[in-house]
């Protein structure tokens, strides 16, 4: 039986939402789902090599940012890049950088992004993949 498929339109470049995406990817990996991630506008910023590990922006409850980030440390939560990497090791995860989003942040080549990214693609690829997904999310 073919694996089920999760498509994720990943728009956010904030560590709170990226961390949530990492948790969901873990669940998908546990179930051997195929995963296609499309890195859209703000997420492409977070995927730039120079930003991935230093970016500490949060999107929600910003007045509690310090508590949130401290809690991630207290709970020994893997950095979102590590959660994504673990999912890639455990199941078939492909990460596509939206070509337009890349250019917004001066990322023109795959090498401008962290090595989690597999390719740079257009939105048609997302639509095609999402059409056959069992679960489709926008974060």
């Amino acid at each position, binding site marked *: 039986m073919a694996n089920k498929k999760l498509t994720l339109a990943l728009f956010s470049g904030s560590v709170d939402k990226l961390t949530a995406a990492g*948790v969901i990817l873990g*669940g998908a*990996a*546990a*179930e051997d789902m195929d995963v296609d991630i499309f890195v859209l506008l703000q997420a492409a910023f977070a995927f730039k090599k120079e930003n991935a590990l230093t970016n500490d922006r949060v999107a929600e409850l910003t007045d509690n940012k310090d508590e949130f980030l401290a809690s991630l440390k207290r709970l020994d939560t893997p950095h979102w890049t590590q959660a994504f990497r673990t999912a890639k090791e*455990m199941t078939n995860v492909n990460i596509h950088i939206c070509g337009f989003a890349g250019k917004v942040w001066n990322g023109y080549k795959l090498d401008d992004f962290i090595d989690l990214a597999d390719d740079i693609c257009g939105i048609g690829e997302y639509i095609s993949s999402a059409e056959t997904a069992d679960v489709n999310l926008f974060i």
Partner: protein
Amino acid sequence: MMTEDLTNIKVDKSVDARGTSCPGPLLAAKKAIGEIENGQVMEVLSADEGTRRDIPKWCTKKGYEYLGTLEEAGYYKIFLRK
């Protein structure tokens, strides 16, 4: 399976995931299940409340037999047979 049976069950593989939060214990279970043979028993130690519901559901989907859960002091022992 009754609780009495679980306390005496022969465990072939023990996975201690008490230091991790969701989905850590589930991923630890997924990694470890590849290291045991069909018919063998694995226990997953988790202090994460969500895991006690996730592992039985995961077993159903993956075709493993969920045997039951023991509540220990501050954590759960979740048993399954591959």
